[in-house]
């Protein structure tokens, strides 16, 4: 059985829903842990944006690669990172994805092609472009998806990176998560012109501009774009309209926007939309509740494990610095 509109099969959509639920559960737990002081660094939740991560990464092979941002838990999970390892990272513990050295803003998991989150807005763009440049030089057929926010489109590397990718005909999919905010500022208030896709087109990229809360739509659109990447057509651009349902960080109450605005946006929550779609396709709500429950349990377990895990050995503060000239 499949949804006519996007020709998506129900099993695929069900898997998307399960992964989105896992991301949602992870974000909720991470935010809570941050508020309780158990996670000592900043946590940027991607609640409301799960469909993008899942719809994009569903079209990537394990050895394809992604770069992400400060708001990267969802992308990591969608690409295949073990949430338990990532939670240990947030807790700064041994066995975390980066051995506790990076925390939430520097999640990376090279084993699944997750080349790293970034604490500097837009800094992942040139890195993704370079990874694609490397893939082309090595001829390994990999493609790279580069996630960034709408706020990042006002930084220079956005222009430079897109131009570079086009000039060198690189297999990069640029994915803008157009969530209406850049920290406490409405992105529109500081952004001129017709948006990210228009900017990309002016640099010669093919660009799609879609509802990023519709996971089937994201999936279908990306399938096409990635096929073009693999065919050697050069970089592709995808703008995903969405909304940041939480504060900028776990510490941000986001009082700069009306409760009513946020409530209205919850009606467009991708988890809700996907559940409705699955129900229309005949999947029972009880089954969906089971998926959500499984995610909650898995994350609760990850949380408990992380809280119980030991801190890294102090000597690791000086490992992985550099081969010559590291502190003794």
């Amino acid at each position: 059985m499949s949804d006519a509109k996007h020709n998506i099969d129900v099993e695929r959509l069900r898997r998307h829903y399960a992964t989105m639920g896992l991301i949602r559960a992870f974000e909720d737990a991470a935010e809570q842990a941050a508020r309780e002081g158990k996670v000592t660094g900043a946590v940027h939740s991607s609640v409301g944006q799960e469909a993008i991560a899942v719809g994009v990464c569903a079209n990537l092979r394990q050895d394809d690669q992604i770069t992400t941002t400060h708001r990267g838990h969802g992308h990591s999970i969608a690409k295949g990172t073990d949430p338990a390892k990532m939670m240990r990272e947030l807790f700064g513990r041994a066995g975390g994805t980066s051995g506790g050295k990076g925390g939430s803003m520097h999640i990376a998991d090279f084993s699944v092609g997750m080349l790293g989150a970034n604490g500097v807005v837009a800094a992942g763009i040139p890195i993704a472009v370079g990874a694609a440049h490397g893939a082309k030089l090595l001829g390994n057929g990999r493609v790279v998806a580069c996630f960034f926010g709408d706020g990042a489109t006002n930084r220079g590397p956005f222009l430079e990176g897109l131009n570079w990718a086009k000039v060198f005909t690189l297999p990069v999919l640029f994915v803008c998560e157009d969530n209406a905010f850049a920290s406490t500022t409405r992105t529109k208030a500081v952004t001129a012109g017709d948006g990210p896709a228009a900017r990309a087109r002016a640099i010669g990229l093919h660009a799609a501009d879609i509802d990023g809360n519709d996971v089937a739509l994201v999936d279908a659109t990306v399938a096409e774009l990635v096929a073009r990447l693999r065919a050697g057509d050069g970089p592709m651009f995808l703008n995903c309209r969405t909304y940041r349902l939480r504060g900028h960080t776990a510490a941000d109450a986001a009082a700069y926007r009306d409760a009513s605005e946020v409530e209205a946006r919850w009606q467009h929550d991708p988890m809700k939309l996907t559940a409705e779609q699955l129900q229309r396709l005949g999947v029972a709500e009880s089954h969906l509740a089971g998926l959500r429950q499984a995610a909650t349990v898995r994350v609760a377990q990850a949380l408990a494990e992380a809280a119980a895990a030991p801190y890294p050995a102090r000597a690791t503060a000086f490992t992985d610095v550099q081969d010559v000239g590291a502190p003794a």
Partner: protein
Amino acid sequence: MSRITYQQACLDALAEEMRRDPRVWALGEDLGRGGVFGQYRGLVAEFGPERIADTPISEATIMGAAVGAALVGTRPVVEMRFSDFALCAVDELVNQAAKARFMFGGQARVPMVIRQPIGMWRSSAAQHSQSLEGWYTHIPGLVVVTPATAADNKGLLKSAIRCDDPVVYMEHKDLWQVPDDVPDGPDHLVPLGKARIAQAGSDCTIVTWSRMLSVALQAAGALAKDGLEAEVIDLRTLWPWDRQAVLDSVARTGRLIVAQEAVVVSGFGAEVAATVAEELGPRLKAPIRRLGSPRAPIAYSPPLEDVLRVTADSIADTAKRLCASG
């Protein structure tokens, strides 16, 4: 005198200077909502969005536009949020702001303040924790200020805003909530380039700045219990720095410790140590000692982060050893 926080002190300073001089304005991301550390809270209500300007995430242009605006007679206060992000705007700071006055033969000046909060702030990790003050002391044309107390964060920010040259103004992220007695009224100015003897002593000299001041004072307290009198000097301004105050002190004590949060290698402590070695070398009673971070990126995990911190114990131990020898 009022007891106010480091954060409130700089808020007051900026507001007073904006009232005093209509050419002063501030620009940066999220300033309209008070800035990321609340250090602009409420200012937009008094001064409006033209003078407390919310900008795009465009560090290079925040800095570069401020240079242009300064060249034509306004006095911008630039907010970089974290000194780490200012690395996106180094050309604009180092090649443009610092050099324009000179390159153009003195035809114009670049009166701007570049606020770049520095330092470790629990689990901010490698890209949100750096202390790069030493870098900017190396660049001709720049003034570099590192306030350690609320009183100084008022008086120095006001002096920085009145300065006709670009001032890299580095608050420490772990100090925002720390209170201090601050002189009331708009006339509290702290001159650029003058150190403060935070505690007098005759056995050894501890030179420091920024958040490390409180750690050094703690060490001095511990040393006092062992009968050792450490003199603690807060440089306040790293360029120009108060060479004379340091040389006078070390000439008296014969022993120097420089304590900094930054990476020791090529940090500003090297400049202080090298200068003292040049000027007083053979008259010292003991070797100079620098304390600071080992040369490693700053980790996220609390115990790993703490490995890099200079503690009161490490300062006190070093002082004791120096005082024992010689």
